């Protein structure tokens, strides 16, 4: 009985920890780093974290002014630094993914909707810059039918010069709860039928895409 109780206490504790903003940011950051494609922008989370960071910085200054013991101050400073690092790295990883798959992101509405407003503007500016750079150096010198950035020539049937993110790379992931076959796409039900909770699995990204979006899986 005691072990069951302590197990449930641990569960509650984990639930509590996992809902703090920092934990959510850590989770979003880990997922973003591991995923080959860009994920949904957590705008409310980022907003809250920014406000909390500002608050913490103000507290910092109050502490320093009140001459509180330097050790405490530096501990708070460390915590603040680490959270700032998480936030900055999260935004950085997203920007780098946008840079990498620039034309594809702007072409596909699904990805375009996952960007925040500032990221969309950044992506558009980047495409203009890169487009004009490519035009100047290469495309203007080529004959007429071959001047498109996205297609090899006007006889191509689709945009074949745009690289797409590779969704069949392998990722390591862990499920938050027991997942049955219903949580996965029906197309993949031959490959993957269930996933135990907290078991590290090495799997193709596209199989876990759907549960990842629903928050049931974490990438490691």
């Amino acid at each position, binding site marked *: 009985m005691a072990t069951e109780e302590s197990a449930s206490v641990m569960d509650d504790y984990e639930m509590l920890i996992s809902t703090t903003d920092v934990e959510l940011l850590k989770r979003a950051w880990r997922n973003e780093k591991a995923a080959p494609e860009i994920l949904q922008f957590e705008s409310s989370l980022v907003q809250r974290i*920014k406000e909390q960071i500002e608050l913490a910085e103000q507290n910092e200054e109050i502490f320093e002014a009140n001459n509180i013991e330097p050790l405490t101050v*530096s501990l708070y*400073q*460390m915590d603040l*630094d*680490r959270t*700032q*690092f998480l*936030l*900055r*790295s999260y*935004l*950085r990883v997203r*920007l*780098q993914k946008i*840079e*990498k798959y620039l034309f594809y992101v702007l072409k596909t509405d699904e990805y375009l909707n996952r960007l925040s407003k*500032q*990221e969309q*503007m*950044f992506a558009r*500016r*980047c495409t203009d*810059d*890169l487009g004009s*750079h*490519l035009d*100047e*150096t*290469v495309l203007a*010198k*080529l*004959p007429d039918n*071959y001047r498109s950035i996205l297609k*090899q*020539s006007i*006889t191509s049937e689709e945009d074949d*010069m745009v690289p797409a993110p590779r969704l069949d790379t392998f990722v390591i992931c862990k499920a938050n709860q027991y997942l049955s076959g219903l949580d996965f796409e029906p197309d993949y039900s031959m490959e993957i039928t269930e996933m135990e909770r907290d078991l590290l699995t090495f799997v193709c990204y596209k199989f876990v895409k759907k549960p990842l979006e629903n928050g049931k899986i974490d990438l490691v």
Partner: protein
Amino acid sequence: MYARKGYELVKDLANGEKGQLQPFNEDLFNQVVDQCTQHYLELQALIRKMQEESVDVRETRNSDHYGALIHHLSLIRNKRCLMAYVHSRAEVIQNFAWKVGLELLELPEEIQEKLSPSEKNYFGKHSSALQSYMAEVGIDLNVDMVPPKDPYIKVRVLDDMGEGILLSDKTANLALHSMHFLKRTDAEQYIARVGLDGRAYRMTLKQGVSQTISMTMEFQM
């Protein structure tokens, strides 16, 4: 002909070290472009020939058609080689904006020599796009490239950067070989350039609490 020069251009790109730039190979590039125009002229000549013989241009499969097809395919391959060359260089330039700094003038001389004027222009535009994003979001994304371990780090200056460098809580005189105990975020903008130099190294003090990272402003490219 037939994309052999294009292949040489791509090999030129692949032979350089990963992440480093070679000087922009203007000659080879122009040669490939010339070959493209040649192919196109041949292509047009063949198509015109087929039209003059009042043969259906799209459907027939005679020798002229195949000749035109070869020219078209070499042209596309040349285009791919050229685009790959310019695009990979552009990616390396994008990385510079993250690693080195956002001001064009901060790029050391050796790197600036290797860029074509259009690439310098692209770098300027890209960094201003990044800067405007950072300004909108209100967060500086160029610091904290590495997870923080200590709030203050001990650094030794490897290159004379002069006096009166303004840091967040004091001014420091960063003379050659002097040691300073700086806040991490301040020191980072100088340490960030360490990545480009093969000679950069970290030393851990035997007493073991803080890391000593050497700051350098010299680059070998």
